[in-house]
């Protein structure tokens, strides 16, 4: 996927700007607070219809303005052109347009523009809370499969209903015999979720070590484990019956906690280096390298599953990396097509083939060169 041009109005500190991007690597540089990350945020917004850091559209609306607009011109790897426009106003809410046509369900857009984002907040991924790791894998798989997104939505809804019933049961206002319609939907959709997550982890384990070694120059074994409390047999792939039985076995504990303790909403990803969990033993640098490797694997998975190169967004991640690692990293991402990288210092990027890089400097919400 290639984002040719983006037009922004009243988005964060960008009043009105029209920016053309290069087909491969785009380095957006400038001092802090000039709008570099906002630019990446806008690209992410076009693809996912949401910001990766603001909880509501109001926050990304420029101060004192009535509306904001983000419009992008894209070209697929097969050279089909299309446009996406997002319009938000305080009075009228958010509207999404695909080729000028209004989209009723935002979920219809997800997956059309595959994107992977790597930002400083992600650096916590390996050692932060499990919810972040689930969010990571859920965003990825929702882009790969709209059925995954649907299964996830149904699962979450069924879970809320079930938890409500658990509260009522613990207060003796209902009994366990009315749980089964929700359990059945948890099992059916939850099994689908676990299966797709597992499939990605299998893919990632084949690739992540190579990228890690390419960036770090260290010969270390890296692996990821999908940690689930649904103890299914990997060989048979049978999840449904095990999940159903585990839910049943855990019933008393669920009622006591008024919360469902079993299922993919409690699962986690664990990263290992040389067989030891990175969460406890990894250094900052190792975490960063692992994360970059994981994001490249994510891009490769998106490419394989959607037959389209994703747009890679890398937000100010060069901080602690030396020039050699930065170079290795850039070499790794070149085959994936378009990449947008923000950095405070242009000097960090050296020795990259000139024909594949476009530099742009941003100052006070304006591209200055």
């Amino acid at each position, binding site marked *: 996927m290639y984002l040719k041009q983006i037009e922004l109005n009243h988005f964060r500190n960008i009043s009105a700007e029209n920016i053309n991007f290069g087909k491969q690597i785009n380095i957006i540089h400038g001092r802090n607070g000039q709008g570099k990350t906002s630019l990446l945020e806008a690209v992410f917004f076009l693809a996912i219809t949401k910001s990766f850091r603001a909880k509501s559209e109001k926050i990304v609306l420029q101060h004192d303005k009535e509306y904001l607009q983000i419009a992008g011109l894209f070209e697929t790897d097969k050279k089909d052109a299309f446009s996406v426009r997002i319009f938000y106003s305080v009075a009228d809410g958010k509207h999404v347009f695909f080729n000028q046509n209004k989209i009723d369900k935002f979920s219809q857009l997800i997956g059309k523009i595959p994107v992977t984002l790597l930002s400083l907040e992600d650096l916590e991924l390996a050692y932060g809370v499990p919810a972040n790791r689930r969010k990571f894998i859920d965003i990825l798989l929702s882009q790969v499969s*709209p059925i995954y997104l*649907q299964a996830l939505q*149904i699962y979450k809804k*069924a879970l809320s*209903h079930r938890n409500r*019933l658990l509260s009522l049961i613990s207060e003796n206002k209902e009994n366990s015999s009315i749980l*089964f319609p929700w359990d059945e939907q948890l099992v059916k959709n939850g099994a689908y979720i676990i299966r797709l997550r597992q499939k990605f982890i299998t893919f990632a384990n084949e690739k992540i070590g190579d990228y890690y070694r390419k960036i770090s120059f260290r010969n270390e074994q890296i692996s990821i484990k999908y940690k689930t409390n649904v103890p299914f047999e990997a060989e048979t792939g049978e999840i449904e019956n095990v999940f159903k039985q585990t839910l049943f076995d855990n019933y008393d504990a669920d009622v006591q906690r008024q919360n469902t303790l079993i299922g993919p909403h409690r699962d986690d990803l664990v990263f290992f280096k040389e067989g030891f969990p990175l969460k406890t033993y990894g250094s900052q640098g190792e975490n960063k390298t692992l994360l970059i490797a994981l994001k490249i694997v994510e891009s490769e998975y998106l490419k394989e599953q959607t037959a389209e190169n994703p747009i890679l967004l890398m937000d100010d991640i060069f901080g602690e990396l030396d020039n050699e690692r930065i170079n290795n990293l850039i070499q790794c991402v070149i085959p994936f097509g378009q990449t947008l990288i923000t950095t405070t210092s242009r000097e960090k990027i050296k020795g990259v083939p000139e024909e594949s890089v476009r530099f742009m400097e941003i100052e006070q919400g304006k591209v200055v060169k």
Partner: protein
Amino acid sequence: MHTSGLPVLDKLINDFSKLPGIGYKTAQRLALFILKSDSSYVSELADALLSVKENTRLCEQCFNIAEHERCSICADTRRDAGLLCVVEDVVDVMAIEESHEFRGLYHVLGGVISPLAGTMPDDLHLKELAARVQVNGVREVLLAINPSTEGEATMIYISRMLRDSDVRITRIASGVPLGSHLEFLDTATIGRAIQTRRDL
């Protein structure tokens, strides 16, 4: 909020704006229309409003809207009493009736199971459904419930409830709408249509 300066008119506007789909502007227009209309039309309208409340009730068999103990569908002896179509609401009966495709009887649940909204199985006409299936020689129960998470839960509940009876339980198909083009459909709908494909 808004005021026209005439309390009687304000009251009417306010009452109109409680109707579904009616905002303040439309309510104002309706009220002014009433104000300017002939008295005979207005009293006819008022009678119609009262009459619909006073002279209707729920059908004792299927909980559709009825003028008598049984609704016009249940009372129609030409309809197939061996085939029951289960729907959420009266409006769904109307929608299906307009298609003229279904010649059986209905059973209106009055909603779907939704613990978050406080609707439990006992709040719906589910026991009555189980009783009907047992006595009336019903051959098939067709579930025409919206495929939301709550709708699915309700269908799962009903199929378990009727598991031991001899009736065939079916559900309406979901997938590609008539007259639409595959390329414009969302992928989840196409996915569902493929999952529930059938032989030709």
